[in-house]
């Protein structure tokens, strides 16, 4: 970090977006609320009429909703990865971006968590998925991957949120001390009376380390558990031990791409160049290139295993993905996830705003299609040829997909407006602390 920055300057810079309105923010917020309205209306229609308004038909019982669920859970990986794993490995480039990445994680998981409720046939009974004592003496099936999912996602959400909030407390305190009136009272309540006493910092740092240590296996487990939704099923195209690492790599791939997509404009609009540098993005891009490589390898591996197993069902599904009616999904996936990201091997591309922004968006699109490819094409081409179908999403499903993005962006926009989107205390930590000794040396 630049040594020119002072602690007070950091406070000023990072809190500036909270107090200065921008047209861009209001425009985006309006757009997000519009999308939210679209999604809400679509879901309302679905609740009233039933899931028939979506494109399901036997044997395709999962479609856009689960695709989007997995997509958002995947997005939700980068934040905790960056904040927890990079914290534990003491990577310096984490500091500038981790707060926003973590916020992205929380909101992505919040978005993902909507989808089980949207997806189930009887959303009004979805609370049955949680174990609670009841007069029916009935419990859940803890052998079901979906139950694991419920546990994994809710645990991940809870732990990430706590981790996020704990990280925020000193910064909220800083914001509190820069506000007046009722806003100050609100921030004061959220800051939990944080004033940076020695006792607070002492246990805080210990607990933060534990949170990071606890969140780390979660990052790796959540998408593994999500992948078991598929891998534990017997559907050809799903039933593969490759899935957990493949999904985790994909999740980090898409998550990092999403971080790039979100933080490039953030850096520009809020003029945070001093804290978020292009080399932050370059690091993220390199992480993407690495996980993208794993992903490409996994794609190949899937085909090899399907061929080598000589299992006609498995191989049939994989061939159908390429030559069947889902060829365009497969093509989009390979193009967006394997081919276009190769551009980042050129330093010029991965250090330019346009190069980073466009490719990261392409990756996000590609990763959505990857999940769609896995879910729709496998189900549509299952064991019994008599049941083969072609699934097409409906407008309702696409509306809810749009709504999910809007929901995510609404939260994210609120976040950047309410909370410091770069970790103030940690940025200060990376600075050389103000020393009398330095000043004296400078004076000489």
């Amino acid at each position: 970090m630049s040594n020119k920055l002072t602690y007070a300057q950091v406070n000023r810079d990072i809190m500036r977006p909270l107090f200065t309105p921008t047209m861009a923010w209001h425009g985006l917020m309006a757009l997000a609320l519009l999308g939210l309205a679209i999604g809400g209306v679509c879901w309302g229609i679905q609740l009233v009429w039933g899931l028939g308004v979506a494109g399901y038909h036997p044997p395709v019982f999962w479609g856009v909703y689960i695709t989007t669920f997995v997509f958002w859970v995947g997005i939700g990986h980068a934040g905790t990865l960056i904040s927890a794993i990079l914290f534990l490995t003491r990577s310096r480039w984490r500091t500038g971006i981790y707060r926003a990445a973590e916020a992205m994680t929380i909101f992505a998981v919040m978005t993902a968590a909507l989808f089980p409720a949207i997806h189930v046939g009887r959303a009004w009974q979805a609370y049955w998925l949680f174990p609670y004592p009841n007069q029916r003496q009935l419990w859940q099936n803890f052998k079901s991957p979906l139950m694991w999912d419920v546990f994994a996602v809710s645990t991940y959400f809870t732990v990430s949120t706590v981790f996020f909030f704990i990280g925020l407390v000193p910064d909220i305190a800083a914001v509190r001390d820069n506000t007046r009136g009722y806003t100050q009272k609100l921030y004061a309540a959220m800051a939990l009376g944080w004033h940076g006493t020695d006792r607070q910092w002492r246990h805080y740092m210990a607990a933060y380390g534990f949170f990071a240590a606890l969140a780390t296996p979660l990052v790796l487990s959540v998408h593994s558990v999500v992948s078991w939704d598929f891998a534990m099923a017997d559907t050809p195209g799903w039933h593969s031990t490759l899935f957990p690492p493949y999904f985790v790599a994909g999740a980090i791939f898409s998550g990092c791409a999403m971080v790039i997509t979100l933080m490039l404009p953030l850096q520009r609009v809020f003029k945070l160049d001093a804290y978020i540098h292009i080399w932050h993005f370059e690091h993220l891009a390199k992480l993407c290139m690495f996980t993208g490589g794993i992903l490409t390898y996994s794609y190949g591996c899937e085909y090899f295993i399907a061929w080598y197993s000589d299992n006609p069902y498995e191989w049939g599904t994989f061939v159908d993905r390429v030559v069947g009616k889902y060829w365009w999904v497969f093509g989009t996936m390979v193009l967006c996830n394997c081919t276009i990201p190769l551009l980042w091997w050129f330093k010029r591309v991965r250090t330019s705003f346009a190069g980073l922004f466009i490719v990261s968006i392409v990756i996000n699109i590609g990763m959505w299609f990857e999940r769609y490819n896995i879910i729709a094409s496998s189900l549509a081409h299952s064991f019994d040829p008599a049941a083969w179908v072609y699934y097409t999403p409906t407008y309702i499903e696409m509306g809810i997909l749009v709504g999910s993005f809007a929901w995510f962006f609404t939260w994210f926009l609120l976040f950047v407006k309410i909370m410091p989107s770069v970790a103030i205390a940690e940025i200060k930590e990376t600075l050389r602390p103000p020393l009398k000794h330095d000043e004296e040396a400078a004076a000489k």
Partner: protein
Amino acid sequence: MRQLTRATLAIVLFTGAAVGMAGFATRANAEDDEASAEEASEETFTIGMKNLLPPELFDRNLVVTVGQPLDEAIEQPIAFTHERHVKTLGMDCNYCHSNARKGVHAGVPATSVCMGCHALVDTTDRPELVKLKEYWDKGEVIPWKKVHDLPDYVYFSHKRHVVAGLDCQECHGEVQNMTVNERVAPLNMGWCLDCHAQHESITENYGTKAELRRAELKDCWTCHK
């Protein structure tokens, strides 16, 4: 304006975080069945049939019961009193509810059954009997209100329970003492299961096979249709 927006957004954030569970507290059905079945089984049904979780774990205060609230008296078209018929006159339940040992529904007696006796009973100064007579004369159906109303997805056979040797009172309460018929049992799933898991009649009826029968009785498809 800006502050207002910010305040609204902050409030949304706070309320959104506060999610409460609605507790539909109904009046507790006090006693759990104390009768614990004797472990009379010699032949072990190897997957093991024990109520591993104590019933106390299931807090009846937290739960919804099926049907009408327990102590709400339901107004019937004719103020029929079981007490008079059963206790005073000593009639058997089966006389009127003859279907209980033969079929799924116990049923309410046809008006003709009532009139079998009431044709001979003096109706002067007895307005309820006058009502009965009016229904009979007009050939109209008496619109009795259901006191015990199971959901439509439940298969409940009165015959099975009567044949197994259960007393009507075990579920319907001391009907012989009721002037206005009331529901005393919650009729919810946990209540059904309490007996299906450990009612003594199972041991009496099935002897060495009681374990198996208890397992069968706890199968969802025993009651759900």
